[in-house]
């Protein structure tokens, strides 16, 4: 009994000793280098044959969640053809990282889709991946009569470009993960 008591006392003491120690802190988290995040999308539409470029911009500096994004839009002219150019940035990095370059390098694994509710606004692809399937960083926008509506730009990662309609710009059968989905108001006058 004495033996068992002394063992018990010893173990209780050692646990109390542990308890009385000054507690260390958890490991300081390493703030990750969030090089994959897309904070900014710029769509620049330059009229074919010259003129002032029109800018559409979506910017969300703190990524998913946090503060709401900043969205700015431009006005389009009727019956005009524009050369569309999309640029993606990660402005968490300094200087900002150009994500569009990554997308371009993996063109076969990416595709942009453009869905418009504005009457007469059409978008066609001007670039392609190694397999001749569209990518969508370079486009042509064509307007007709005056109209208003929205333009939804979606970037899909690993879409099934072979599926019906996908290479024509129809998102229905594309699948894949959405990396970007932003909607701009469009005003054609």
């Amino acid at each position, binding site marked *: *009994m004495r*033996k*068992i008591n002394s*063992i*018990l006392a010893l*173990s*209780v003491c*050692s*646990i109390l000793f*542990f*308890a009385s120690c000054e*507690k*260390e*802190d*958890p*490991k*300081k*988290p*390493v*703030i*990750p*280098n*969030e*090089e*994959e995040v*897309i*904070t*900014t*999308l710029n769509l620049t539409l330059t009229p074919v044959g010259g003129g002032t470029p029109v800018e559409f911009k*979506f910017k*969300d*500096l*703190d*990524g*998913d*969640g*946090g*503060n*709401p*994004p900043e969205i700015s839009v431009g006005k389009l002219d009727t019956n005009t053809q524009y050369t569309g150019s999309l640029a993606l940035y990660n402005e*968490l990095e300094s200087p900002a990282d150009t994500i569009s370059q*990554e*997308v371009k*390098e*993996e063109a076969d*694994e990416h595709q942009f889709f453009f869905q418009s509710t504005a009457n007469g606004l059409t978008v066609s692809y001007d670039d392609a991946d190694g397999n001749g399937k569209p990518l969508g960083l370079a486009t042509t926008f064509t307007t007709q009569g005056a109209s208003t509506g929205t333009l939804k730009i*979606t970037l*899909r*990662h*690993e879409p*099934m470009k072979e599926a019906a309609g996908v290479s024509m710009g129809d998102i229905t059968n594309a*699948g*894949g*993960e*959405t*990396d*970007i*989905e*932003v909607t701009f108001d469009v005003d054609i006058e």
Partner: protein
Amino acid sequence: MWILSKRALLSLTTSIIPGLIFAQQCLWNVTGSVKDMSTGIPISNAHVFVKEASLKDVTDSLGQFTIGPICKGGYHLAISHVGCESQEFFLRISGDTSITVFLDHHGQLLNEVALLDQGEITATQQSHSLHTDHIAQYSDKNLATMLEDISGVRTLKNGSGIAKPVVHGLYGNRLTILNNGIAQGGQQWGADHSPEIDPLLANKITVVKGVGAIEYMGNSLGSVVLVEPKRIRKEPHLHGEGRYFFESNGLGNGLHLALQQSHKLFAWQAVGTLKKSGDKRTADYFLRNTGNEEAHLALQLEKSWSKKWLSRLYFSSFNANFGVLRGSHIGNLTDLKAALERDVPFYTKDKFSDAIGAPYQKVNHHLLKLHTKYSKSDKESLDINYAQQINLRKEFDVRRSGRSDMPAMSLRQVSSFLEAKYRRALAHHWSFKSGVQLNRVDNSNLPETGILPLIPNYLTYEYGAFGIATKSMKKTTIQIGGRYDFEQRKVAAISNDVPRRVIRHDKEYQAISAMAGMRHEFNQTWNMSYNLGFATRNPEVNELYSNGLHQGVSGIEEGDPELLKEVSLKHTWSLKGDIKGKLFFEGLFYYQNIDDYIFINPQDEVRLTIRGAFPVFKYEQTDARLMGFDVTATYQASERMYFKGSYSYLDGYDRKHQMPLVYMPSNHLKGSFNYQIPSLGKFHNVEFQVNSRYVFEQTNLLPSQDFVAPPAGYHLLGLNVSAERQLRKLRLVSFIRMENLGNVAYRDYLNRQRYFADDLGFNLIAGFNLKF
């Protein structure tokens, strides 16, 4: 199907006839009887083998057998009966020998635990066990899906390889899983994280459908799962077993080996498992990227320093890669809606593949346990345990620019545990057990992801002390207990807004739990029990501090640092018995109130990001009520034939908002027909089983509580055939099992993959187990 300690098992009476011993004369007989452990009724048709002599006998209607004549020497005996856990032991024969062997025959009828250990959690609380023969025949399953055989236990799944047990509606942080007496560490908070335990390393897996686990640290608000490793038998010779299985669905293979020996100096055991399977298949299509690879190992050393001192060392290592359905990886709510509208998931290929790519989980878990026991006498003992656990979890997602090889989540958890337990038998049938415990958990994110971590780094110290008193009288057992825990938690999180910075939180919690239970035996066969448990659970770090996009559920999840601890009060009533040894009945009713029940509540808000709009979910508290029952009945139609049926009902209710609770298992009904043949040609203990399982639709849910309505109810049929054979020194058990015989296409409410794909189609599993 329970093995008592050798001493209790074998009442050995050796009668040596003096003056008649001639060296190497083979004229001795081994006689004896085989009886049921719980009732003492003789068991007929039990097979008795003396391996070295290749002699055998089958017990008669009085449970008697005679084997002989046999030479003087050491022999291995194997005693088996269809449906019972077989017994094997070593016997030295130097004269006519008479033995009595107890098998647990009734156990098979209700999966009950036949022996109640004083002072243990099972003294008054109802428990159900799966034993090694059962585990061997379901070697293809993981811990959670294996436990589904027990009534009232369901699984929360993410596909087919990843599953965690749900008992009485509680899982994850609310259900403690004890691996060899040590609360399983790791990332138990994740609904898509399975417990990192290889069930094949276990000798016995027990589910205590109870009101709390006073003796153990951890967050149990009721039930406990106990995984006990294989014991080392006191056998001087090298023994072991090898298992192999094949499954048609996923073209899976598994190998399991166990070796053991008891030397004079020490005893050892080594156990290993290898499993690999490829893409699983539903009734109609392959589930791409749902294969898994596993390699597990356990080592045990046991040393008796003296009659009073015993030390044990246990090491186990769990290593697995689990593929996650490719079509379930989505970017935003639009993707989820598109997936919901499809019958067949995106990326489905019409060819089988065993490749595992992103998304997948890579999990490693190592446990080292040192146990020292000092037994002063049968009445007094002291146990000291030290345990160290290392849990590594890496989750890989489909990412851009080759980053799929970089984990999207990488966590390392190191837990250190120390405890001292003292146990003493007191006068007037009382026994007392108490202990002190210390646990340190260091959880950190490894900076290799390039992604803001979902849960922060933290370090906790927990101190606990408990006391349990048990009074075991002839017909009644009473148990009361209480425990106190103090927890200090330091958290270091990264802010969600820019510029990113480290935010620290320090918290302290106290918790008290208590239980009281009573079990009464009316007679040999009927007993009832009542248990009352009060328990608390501190909010977990994910509930307090998670802040950001949870990819798997396409929602932004926000924790609340001000959450309070959950307080639970649970009652269980159970009744068990049989009528004339023909109709066996068992019922368990439970009623649990959990105040400040933490749950994730969808908000009206939708948040806009560059990836589109996401719904916002917040961790909130409410008052919950869980109420339900499990009933099982078995009808022994003849000596060879029995029917078994069980039904489980559960109602989860939010008392504050007067609405259902989400993620509650739906009700289910199980039935089986079993036919047993003691001998069939060269085989013995042949068993046929046809089983049926009906899972009802979860109708207790509002449309606003999920993206889609819960799936319809489903019915699955299965078939199981097993047979044994003694091949001189080898004992062969072979089995063939078929699941989802009708190749039914179905989805289950508790499987998160149900948003994207059907559950598993037909599967044929064949395997064997060789013991030597």
